[in-house]
């Protein structure tokens, strides 16, 4: 009976009703938009196979005439992709700016790995409209709207003294009201998310983690609102203070931290790496070919017994200097990656202090759409590229003809 009356009381206040409906609508829209985007990305990935097929078939029919494995290795591009995890709809993370499909060939990888995808930067600039956005940015505003006058509103309406004069059990009134408002807000936010998660086939453990994260973030803001409420200021002062806190916690501090982190942890510009790789690769044309081969065989003794280079051009030398070029910049590549990881770690660490950052990071981690996921994708490309090289080297270094049927044997990118 009490809860029902509390509910009546809450819902008859037009603003509360409006706020709850709005939250539910925003959450539904965000989940729907996220799911549409994930479906689109899946669709793009599904479209790869037939097109690749056609492309490789055309190359195969031409290479088959001369059966030179070098031509096959040089002209064939192989598709790699990073399919979205089921939960990706909740937090699209970096997936709008980092490629999730990339074609590579058996040449130097460092010149291919950092290529981008075609995207409109003006659309990426404001960020995507996904559940993470609704939760991190908008949910606190609704917490503020629903909770800022929890006690001060009663005081301003002149009821507080009367409520306080009621015997002890009445004090549970506040617990009940907080629970009711918090519960409804949580439901409005989380139910659409849960529906989306079930539709997307998100594993139970992840579902619970996201729901828990959502609850924890709401609790943080509710707690903050109640703390400010304890200062016994007016409702207006509460609302203004809380909006100010929101501004600082979700907009100002993260942007300041971004500047600080990028200043504190310089990453050797990626372009430096690319330029060094180019020098290493192209230098091969100007030094004795044997020098390159010696370096190559030192690192890859399994091909040492390959016949010596003929006076004319031979593809195995070409691929050898690409390999050597990659290897000569390996320390730079590692340093570049470490720099990025260090920045990412710093931001994660900041998440323990700044809930907005923490929740954003945790959501993107759960959804596997963050920087770590990007780097993991790069690792998979590296591994695949390695198998590609091995595959072609078997032909190149043994002068085995490469025919149409060998195209069918080319290793495919493993679907994770």
């Amino acid at each position, binding site marked *: 009976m009490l809860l029902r009356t509390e509910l009546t009381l809450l819902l008859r206040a037009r*603003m509360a009703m409006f706020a709850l409906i709005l939250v539910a609508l*925003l959450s539904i*829209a965000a989940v729907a938009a996220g799911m549409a*985007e994930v479906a*689109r990305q899946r669709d793009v990935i599904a*479209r790869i196979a037939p*097109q690749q097929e056609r*492309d490789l078939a*055309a190359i195969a029919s031409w290479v088959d005439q001369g059966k030179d494995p070098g031509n096959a290795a040089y002209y064939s*591009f192989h598709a790699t992709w990073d399919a979205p995890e089921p939960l990706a709809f909740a937090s699209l993370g970096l997936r709008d*700016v*980092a490629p999730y499909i990339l*074609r590579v060939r058996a040449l130097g990888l460092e*010149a291919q790995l950092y290529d*981008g*995808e*075609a995207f*409109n*930067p003006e*659309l*990426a*600039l404001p*960020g*995507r*409209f996904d559940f993470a*956005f609704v939760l991190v940015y908008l949910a606190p505003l609704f917490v*503020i709207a629903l909770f800022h006058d929890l006690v001060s509103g009663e005081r301003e309406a002149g009821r507080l003294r009367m409520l306080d004069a009621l015997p002890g059990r009445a004090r549970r009134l506040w617990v009940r009201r907080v629970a009711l408002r918090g519960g409804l807000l949580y439901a409005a936010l989380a139910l659409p998310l849960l529906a989306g998660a079930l539709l997307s086939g998100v594993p139970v453990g992840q579902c619970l983690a996201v729901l828990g994260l959502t609850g924890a973030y709401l609790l943080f803001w509710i707690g903050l609102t109640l703390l400010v409420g304890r200062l016994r200021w007016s*409702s*207006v002062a509460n*609302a*203004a203070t809380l909006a*100010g806190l929101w*501004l600082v916690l979700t*907009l*100002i501090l*993260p*942007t300041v*931290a*971004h*500047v600080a*982190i*990028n200043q504190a942890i310089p990453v050797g*510009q*990626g*372009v430096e790496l*690319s*330029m060094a790789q*180019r020098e290493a690769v*192209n230098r091969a044309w100007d030094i004795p070919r044997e020098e390159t081969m010696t370096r190559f065989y030192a690192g890859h003794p399994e091909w040492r017994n390959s016949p010596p280079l003929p*006076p*004319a*051009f031979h593809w195995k030398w070409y691929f050898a200097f690409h390999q050597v070029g990659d290897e000569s910049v390996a320390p730079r590549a590692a340093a*570049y990656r470490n720099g*990025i990881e260090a*920045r*990412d770690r*710093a931001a*994660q660490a900041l998440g323990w202090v700044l809930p907005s950052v923490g929740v954003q990071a945790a959501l*993107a981690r759960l959804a596997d759409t963050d*920087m770590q996921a990007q780097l993991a994708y790069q690792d998979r490309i590296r591994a695949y590229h390695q198998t590609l090289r091995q595959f072609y080297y078997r032909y190149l270094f043994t002068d085995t003809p490469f025919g149409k049927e060998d195209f069918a044997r080319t290793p495919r990118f493993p679907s994770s």
Partner: protein
Amino acid sequence: MSAISLIARDELRLMRRNRVAVVAFALLVLLTLAAAFISWSHQRAIAETRARFQAQAAKEFEAQPDRHPHRMVHYGNFIFRPLGPLAAFDPGVDAYTGNSMFLEGHRQNTANFGDVRQSSLLIRFGQLTPAFVLQVIAPLLLIFLGYGAVARERERGTLRQMLVQGVSARQLVAGKLLALAAVAALIGLPAMIAFLLIAGQPDALAGPMAVIALGYAAYLALWAVIVILVSAMMRRGRDALLALLALWAVLVILVPRVAPDIAANAHALPTRLETDIAIQEDLRRLGDSHNPDDPFFTAFKQKMLRQYGVSRVEDLPVNYKGLLAVEGEKLTSRLFDNYADRSFAVQAAQSGLMNGFGMISPTVALRRLSMAAAGTDLDGHHRFLEQAEAYRFAMVQQLNQLQADAVTYADDVAQDAGADTRKRISADHWQAVPEFRFQPAPASDLLRASLPGLLLLLVWLAIAALALIPIARHVQKARR
């Protein structure tokens, strides 16, 4: 002294005596200055890095030894997009686009190594720039300072008292607006001074700078009017504050986020993989340079032989392989241009749709204006891509032409041990390849691109100002 200025003075005095308001104002000014300084030093560092890399790339290119020209086509060149002077105020999409490009023959590479892919997730929270402070945070301060301007008078009953004493509601509203507009001007002033300092001598950019100043002034004025409107409409100060916060969240935070999603869904952009495959297919359809019987390349050969009046390619006064390279690059380049134009068109349609949301949110309109005038919008990036492609084409063709003119056909096809040395031409030729010089958009282009946004903002301002009239009438009724 008129009633309006009396009311404005009183309102300003009240704000001055409100310690929280003064502290908030001071913090915003500090934030603006910090943002300006950070943005400026960041932009300087970027400019310095890119200039250094550009110089290094040019030096390395020129330092290449004697080579076959086609080796240089593959050696290629790195170019960097410099930042315009206004980028420190509004860097726009700079962090989201790659700012360096590797240019080589037969291929069109992407611009790589944008900040967004080598920074932490924090970059997605926005960047602390003067533009961000003015677009997002300044309206919030105006809301805090002004939500009670009229609502407070109504709530405390002083409104009635004033009306009874013969002050008209119109004067009251005008006075409150005047006070808030003065505050808005004070908020915008430090940003504009910083803007002038970091942009340096306006020179040719005076026009775009004026548009930016005008645009931000109109934006802040618009928010001042909106705050007064809502304050006059609501019965209680708290209602006014909540309504304004909701409005701010929708106009400044929500709509700019929703618009890109709608635009991206309305106009699908083909992926690079699909474009690459499509280009390869088109090339195969055109002809196969590896096939001696290919009709397209046979026709080209006949044309060349006819042109020089010989019957065998060996007898041509120029290297046929070089001619073939020139022709091949021309073909691929045309395709690149076609596909790039298509991609640009889709992106332009996306951005156009998104800019249309400027009719719903003045922040979108301002952002458009600001980036366009600063030359840091999509057009600015496309400008770079187009110039990069033009430069790539010219550089590759210059090298291909060198192959045709400076390497003999006999040497080029020779396979003997000494052939490699004979194919090489002097390194002096590399120095003859001009360096890449990015031509920034002329001020008139920036101006033209920023005018629609400005127009939209002014329409917003005009409508909001007109809405003050019925609102003043509404306030007048409080007498009864």
